[in-house]
């Protein structure tokens, strides 16, 4: 891909982010500005900021890539990301704002008056935040590599430096502007190329087999296999091979592959003829970190789909960067209206990734073999349109992708830094917040450079599962159930969130082999870990009735009473 336009585009986004941030800095005067933008952000600006923050690398690149590889089942991701806001709206939004707390640990302390629960919630916030930051940095690395052949780690480092600088300098006020700006940038960066791509598609006679299974090659295409893979064929397939297949080396040989499994070594070039079906590929040799890559379309059980639905529907409310944003609303009613606007904005955005996924199946089906399906969105303009126009559109997409990494990473850094400053570092001033920012970013950056290789959308899915099993019970029961006790909340978070975390870790470590029923259970923990979290929280709370905090009634009144009724309770 021609990078002569893409690099300026990425640079422009980075510079614009810093400038908008600096503009925020000029009007960011007080400490309250710094943390919660003085709680005066109106629904429209706030909704754009929340959406800008929420639409991450997983949304911008990951969904199209997943749809390309695994078909329409993967569209449950964007549906879940959106529906998560509906669940958040109906159970959490207004009471959370009225609680007057700033972070999830603040909420836990306000509701349960317990330092222990506060610390535990803080630990989970930092864990989920880091888990979610990791794929953002990796996505940035991938984008820059695809665009410029720069080394993998460079994109992550750029994002980390810019984000740390903006957050540390301007705090919440400037981040609000940055993120609102980036929502519209991201929408434009996907919408404009999508329009041109659809026009091209129509010009091609609107081929419709994008929705057929399996995808087929439209024209003769050479595929370079970057990681060793296993191909599974239902029917014999003829390909030209340069490289190693099933242990034998070929040079430009026409090879008839029989039905069954064939091992392709890395670096092999396969030439597929026009109309050939795209074979299914399994990564082999240490690559199968992710739940969804390890399962094929056919083997993905219904269970996994429901697990995904539950995790995304319930996990959104516990994401630390989402929650912090609600405290910037002036009051509970505004918090609700903001959420509705957010639903509209992200719903509109999510109409676009499926378009890229479907077109990717038509025009770039080989990405499933070459190992970087996440790059589909970036490559399509060049592939379909080409020329200067293709390059310019590609540059626009690249800029949008960087906006995605920057905005989500800023929000997460803000949230994690908030917790680190309040609960870990010795004092709470703005200077320590800046130190917290550096810490919040350093750990995932180190991890992304050291670990690498987790598919973007999958890693985000894991963060959702952990959040759904720990924070969702805490928030829902904390807001609606009087008899919640500190031991119950702690036990529920530990059992629900802890077991989800362990299950995910076991899957990543490759503990149960492929295909086992146990594997699906561990790879998609939400379906059992969320009920487990709720159940533990309820049962332990019922078993410790004496520990219900004495102020519960007035705390709940504060959560639920409209602002004009409640007396001036000190928040």
């Amino acid at each position, binding site marked *: 891909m021609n990078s002569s336009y893409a690099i300026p585009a990425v640079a422009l986004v980075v510079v614009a982010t810093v400038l908008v941030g600096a503009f925020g800095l000029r009007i960011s005067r007080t400490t309250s500005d710094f943390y919660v933008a003085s709680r005066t952000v109106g629904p429209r600006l706030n909704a754009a900021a929340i959406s800008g923050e929420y639409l991450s690398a997983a949304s911008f690149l990951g969904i199209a890539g997943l749809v390309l590889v695994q*078909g*329409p*089942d993967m*569209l*449950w991701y964007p*549906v879940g990301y*959106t*529906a998560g*806001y*509906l*669940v958040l*709206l*109906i*159970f959490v939004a*207004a009471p959370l704002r009225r609680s007057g707390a700033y972070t999830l640990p603040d909420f836990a302390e306000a509701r349960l008056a317990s330092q222990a629960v506060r610390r535990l919630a803080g630990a989970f916030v930092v864990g989920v935040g880091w888990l979610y930051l990791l794929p953002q940095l990796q996505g940035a690395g991938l984008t820059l590599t695809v665009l410029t052949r720069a080394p993998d780690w460079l994109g992550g480092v750029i994002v980390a430096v810019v984000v740390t600088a903006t957050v540390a300098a301007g705090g919440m006020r400037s981040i609000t502007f940055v993120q609102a700006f980036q929502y519209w940038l991201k929408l434009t960066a996907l919408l404009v190329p999508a329009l041109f791509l659809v026009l091209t598609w129509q010009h091609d006679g609107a081929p419709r087999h994008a*929705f*057929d*299974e399996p995808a087929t090659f439209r024209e003769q295409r050479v595929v370079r296999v970057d990681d060793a893979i296993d191909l599974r064929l239902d029917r014999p397939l003829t390909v030209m091979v340069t490289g190693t297949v099933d242990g034998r080396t070929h040079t430009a040989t026409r090879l008839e592959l029989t039905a069954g499994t064939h091992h392709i070594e890395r670096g092999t070039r396969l030439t597929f003829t026009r109309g050939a079906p795209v074979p299914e590929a399994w990564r082999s040799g240490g690559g199968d970190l992710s739940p969804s890559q390890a399962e094929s379309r056919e083997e993905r059980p*219904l269970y996994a*789909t*429901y697990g995904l*639905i539950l995790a995304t529907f319930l996990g959104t409310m516990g994401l630390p960067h989402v929650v912090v944003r609600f405290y910037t609303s*002036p*009051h*509970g*009613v*505004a918090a*609700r*209206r903001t*959420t*509705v606007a957010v*639903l*509209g904005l992200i*719903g*509109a955005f*999510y*109409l676009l990734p*499926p378009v890229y996924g*479907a077109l990717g199946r038509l025009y770039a089906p080989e990405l499933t073999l070459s190992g970087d399906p996440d790059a589909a969105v970036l490559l399509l303009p060049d592939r379909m349109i080409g020329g200067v126009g293709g390059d310019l559109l590609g540059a626009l997409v690249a800029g949008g992708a960087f906006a995605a990494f920057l905005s989500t990473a800023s929000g997460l850094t803000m949230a994690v830094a908030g917790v680190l400053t309040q609960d870990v570092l010795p004092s709470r001033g703005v200077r320590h917040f800046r130190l917290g920012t550096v810490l919040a970013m350093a750990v995932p950056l180190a991890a992304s450079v050291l670990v690498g290789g987790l598919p973007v959308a999958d890693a985000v899915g894991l963060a959702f599962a952990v959040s759904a099993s720990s924070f969702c019970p805490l928030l829902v029961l904390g807001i*609606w159930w009087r008899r919640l006790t500190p031991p119950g909340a702690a036990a529920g978070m530990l059992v629900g969130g802890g077991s989800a975390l362990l299950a995910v870790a076991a899957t990543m470590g490759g503990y149960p082999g492929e295909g086992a029923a146990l594997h699906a259970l561990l790879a998609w923990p939400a379906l059992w870990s969320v009920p487990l979290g709720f159940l533990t929280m309820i049962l332990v709370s019922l078993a410790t009735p004496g520990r219900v905090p004495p102020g519960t*009634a*007035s705390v*709940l*009144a504060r959560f*639920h*009473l*409209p*602002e*004009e*009724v*409640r*007396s001036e309770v000190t928040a």
Partner: protein
Amino acid sequence: MPQDHTERRVVVTGPPRQTVPHARLRSRGRYPQASGSYRPRTEIDEQTTLGHTYVRSLMRTQLRAALTVITVLGLLVGPLPLLFAALPDARRLEWAVLGFGLYVPLVLLAHWYVRRAERNERDFVRLVEDR
């Protein structure tokens, strides 16, 4: 204003209702100061049993609205994976529903909930302030 209309027609038997000016505006929370102190407000402020009952009733109506929405959401979304599994050939249906069809119902549900929740709160404010 329909207010005049009702004042002319309705025979007031109890203590006269206090009409709150700009009630709508205030219930949007733009001016969160309360006007005057009436009995239920005091009950709530002083956290008597009666005050708790008021808060509980508000929580219950709000929870009912939330549960209605989550039930509709469950009925809407829950059967879809089963449906798609049962019709493996209906790929285009799956693309259309998941890719484009679900977002509008989600926004409509959210909109309905917000209107309902705000009405519940207005009713509550009226109950508490007008007695």
